């Protein structure tokens, strides 16, 4: 059975079917990401003053990832344009470059995730005094852990409850100041496991900011992976369609390019919202 309107446009829609389909799909995607952006705004507006983090994410890495995705959008459109001009060799080059960009993006993202997942907030109790330490886990054994203090940290409800908040006051201020001194000197902090009351990494459950950060960027990364798989298929086994039905193949590349552009456009909004503002 032949699938209709894979190459020529339907008279009533003015589009070939796959293009209509991808735009309907992208409309649903706008609603999905729109809802999550709204969630971000509501969480941020509703946060206790001074507790929403600034500078927690690595802006140079985020910028590099943004550049990588922008370049990939250029290569994806050039790949499609090459097919329109019947230059299959050039298409291969641009399609390959897009796949490399997708891979680079995911590798950089994984480094960012690793940075968050090895970042810990540790509450200790020594005598009747509580301390909150914050830093990257650099070493651990059954007796102790070693943290490298971080320049940027989050203030969780738990830390604030122990008096380690964004606006230090009284005796707690001195303790917090002590923690900052550690941070300035880049001295490692050794903590005995027996004194640890609570220890949690900067995963999604640690703070509302991290929850929405991982949800938004994780969903985006899944889209990148999905798009890359489809484009890898066209680059590999799917490319033989060029010999039998070049027009339909060109349309398929356009559809994957539209999806890729949407994914990149989402990042163009995500980057300033999460990293800069």
């Amino acid at each position: 059975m032949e699938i209709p309107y894979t190459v020529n446009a339907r008279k009533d829609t003015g589009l070939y079917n796959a293009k209509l389909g991808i735009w309907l799909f992208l409309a649903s995607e706008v609603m999905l990401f729109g809802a999550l952006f709204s969630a971000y705004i509501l969480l941020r507006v509703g946060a206790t003053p001074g507790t929403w983090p600034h500078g927690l994410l690595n802006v140079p890495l985020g910028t590099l990832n943004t550049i990588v995705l922008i370049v990939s959008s250029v290569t994806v459109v050039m790949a499609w344009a090459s097919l329109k001009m019947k230059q299959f060799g050039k298409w291969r080059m641009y399609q390959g470059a897009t796949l490399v960009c997708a891979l680079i993006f995911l590798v950089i993202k994984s480094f960012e995730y690793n940075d968050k997942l090895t970042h810990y907030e540790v509450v200790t109790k020594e005598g009747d005094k509580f301390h909150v330490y914050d830093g990257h886990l650099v070493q651990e054994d059954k007796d102790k852990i070693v943290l490298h203090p971080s320049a940027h940290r989050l203030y969780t409800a738990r830390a604030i409850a122990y008096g380690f908040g964004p606006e230090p006051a009284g005796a707690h201020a001195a303790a917090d100041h002590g923690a900052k001194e550690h941070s300035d000197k880049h001295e490692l902090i050794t903590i005995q496991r027996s004194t640890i009351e609570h220890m949690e990494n900067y995963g999604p459950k640690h703070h509302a900011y991290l929850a929405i950060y991982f949800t938004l960027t994780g969903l985006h990364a899944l889209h990148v992976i999905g798009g890359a798989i489809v484009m890898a298929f066209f680059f590999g086994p799917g490319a033989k369609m060029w010999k039998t039905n070049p027009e339909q193949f060109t349309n398929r590349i356009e559809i994957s390019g539209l999806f890729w552009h949407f994914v990149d456009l989402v990042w163009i909004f995500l980057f300033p919202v999460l990293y800069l503002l």
Partner: protein
Amino acid sequence: MSLKAFHIVFVLATLALTLFLTVWAYQEFARTQSSNHLTAAICAAVTSLMVLVYGRFFLKKLKHISYQ
């Protein structure tokens, strides 16, 4: 809307981002006096110009391809 038209929308969004980045980095420079932020602001401004030049190049290169 074809990939060509969507790409133009994308280029405009990129231009808006680079302009925003220029302003953000300059404001950070004014606040912290960090030369890194000044360098970032200059780089973002230069990138804005590059995006504009690319936009013109793109329109010229793909002038025979439909927007639909």
